[in-house]
């Protein structure tokens, strides 16, 4: 699917990309506010509550502060790498996030505009649909390892270099568990396409086992009931990939000052920040897509929802828009829950020691992910005999 056939479709698709990028960037200050308020309540404090209602204007104040910081390069830094690293932190996150389907497509019928007839169109509520969705998202978002090394090496400071090496060794170690944990998921759905995965999870739980149809109408047909171990492994590895506590050895204030971004300040630091939250968003989005039904509503199939929407609206276009809105809200409720889990865990668990971290990745999560792959393959083979 390219950008479209005529100027209207191309314009809408182009604007959509910008809107999704802005949506991702604009979510960051809200998440920062949520993180600060949430951490305050977890620690029995009040958190930011002075600037504006509930402290919400704190975000604007912070943004202005970031923007007006002075912009300089340390003498020992390599200027190109030093400037390129924050940009690289932001782009892969944004590109990968745009590939996540957030709702069902919106149908636009034919209409008259500027004296000619336009349409019909189908607009997807995602930046672009890619047949190899998972591979694309994992591939692009793992470019983050380069950011760490560029920032660490380019800053010309031993703390940043050590922080970058630790962080990249951690990121690549957990990438193995992350990549292997979803082999079972791919086997289950038999596709790389994220929309097809979502649609496979609609309705109540039902599957075929040894030629018998098993139905459990009290459970939604979500991936987590088929792949519980993969869900745990994937989510833990995602924490390590986005450098969040309990895996934030990249920062380790007590040993490494600020880790790979010690020498950064102002807007360049802000871009690292957006990159980190972007990776959290991608991880939450994938968690919802793989294991919690994507944008579908639990128990209700897409066909049933379409039927209901057609009965309350006048045209097919309005019905598809209503369905898309409901799906979008459903996706965002699940998405927000996992974003909250990221914040919740950060303020609940202590940090690992480095050898414990590497042992967990290589000697615990990798074997368990392998076991999950073998068991899934075996069960699928036996079940469909």
């Amino acid at each position, binding site marked *: 699917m390219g950008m479209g056939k005529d100027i209207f479709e191309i314009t809408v698709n182009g604007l959509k990309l910008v809107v999704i990028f802005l949506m991702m960037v604009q979510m960051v200050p809200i998440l920062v506010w949520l993180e600060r308020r949430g951490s305050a309540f977890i620690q029995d404090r009040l958190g930011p509550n002075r600037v504006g209602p509930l402290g919400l204007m704190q975000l604007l104040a912070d943004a202005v502060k970031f923007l007006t910081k002075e912009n300089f390069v340390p003498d*020992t830094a390599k200027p190109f790498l030093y400037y390129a690293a924050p*940009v690289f932190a932001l*782009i892969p996150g944004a590109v990968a996030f745009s590939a996540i389907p957030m709702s069902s497509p919106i149908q636009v019928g034919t209409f008259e505009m500027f004296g000619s007839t336009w349409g019909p169109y189908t607009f997807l509520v995602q930046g672009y649909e890619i047949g190899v969705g998972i591979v694309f998202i994992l591939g692009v978002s793992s470019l983050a390892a380069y950011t760490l090394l560029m920032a660490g090496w380019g800053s010309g400071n031993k703390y940043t270099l*050590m922080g970058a090496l630790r962080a990249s*060794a951690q990121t690549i170690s957990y990438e193995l568990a992350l990549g292997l944990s979803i082999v079972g998921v791919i086997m289950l759905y038999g596709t*790389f396409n994220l929309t097809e995965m979502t649609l496979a999870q609609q309705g109540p739980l039902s599957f075929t086992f040894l030629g018998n149809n098993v139905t459990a109408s009290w459970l939604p047909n979500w991936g987590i009931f088929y792949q519980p171990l993969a869900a745990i492994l994937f989510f833990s590895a995602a924490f390590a990939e986005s450098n969040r506590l309990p895996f934030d050895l990249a920062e380790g204030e007590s040993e490494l000052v600020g880790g790979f971004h010690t020498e950064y300040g102002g807007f360049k630091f802000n871009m690292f920040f957006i990159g980190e939250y972007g990776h959290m968003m991608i991880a939450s989005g994938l968690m919802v897509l793989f294991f919690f039904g994507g944008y579908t509503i639990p128990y209700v199939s897409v066909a049933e929802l379409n039927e209901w929407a057609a009965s309350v609206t006048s045209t097919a276009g309005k019905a598809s828009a209503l369905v898309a809105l409901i799906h979008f809200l459903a996706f965002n409720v699940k998405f927000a829950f996992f974003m909250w889990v990221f914040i919740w865990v950060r303020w609940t668990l202590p940090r690992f020691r*480095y050898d414990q971290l590497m042992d967990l990745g290589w000697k615990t999560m990798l074997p368990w992910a392998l076991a999950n*792959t073998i068991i899934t393959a075996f069960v699928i083979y036996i079940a469909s005999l």
Partner: protein
Amino acid sequence: MPLGGVIFIVIFIALFGAFLVWLAANITGTKPVYNPVKYEPYECGIPGIEKKETKISVKYYLTAILFILFDIEIIFMYPWAISFREFISTGGGAFVFISMMVFIAIFIFGLFWEVKSKALEWD
């Protein structure tokens, strides 16, 4: 479904946005006043004594090499995983299943050997 020009447009928009951000940071940020201490690498407030090219542990290199080996092995499993059900429905399930189990056995042997040879020990 070809990626076509979409990805290039996205990358272009992202690069353009990044450029705008960089420009904004340069325009809005106050101009730095030169001060030799400010431009030194950060060192907890005391003059730096060590060269910036610090010696680093060879462990990181080893980890990276092992990562590449294992990651390529995992990537081999992806096309297998996606076509596994198709193979079962067309009757080739047993062959595909057993050959992947042999592959995974080699994978496990490699991991076991690495643990045994203390390549994954950090101290």
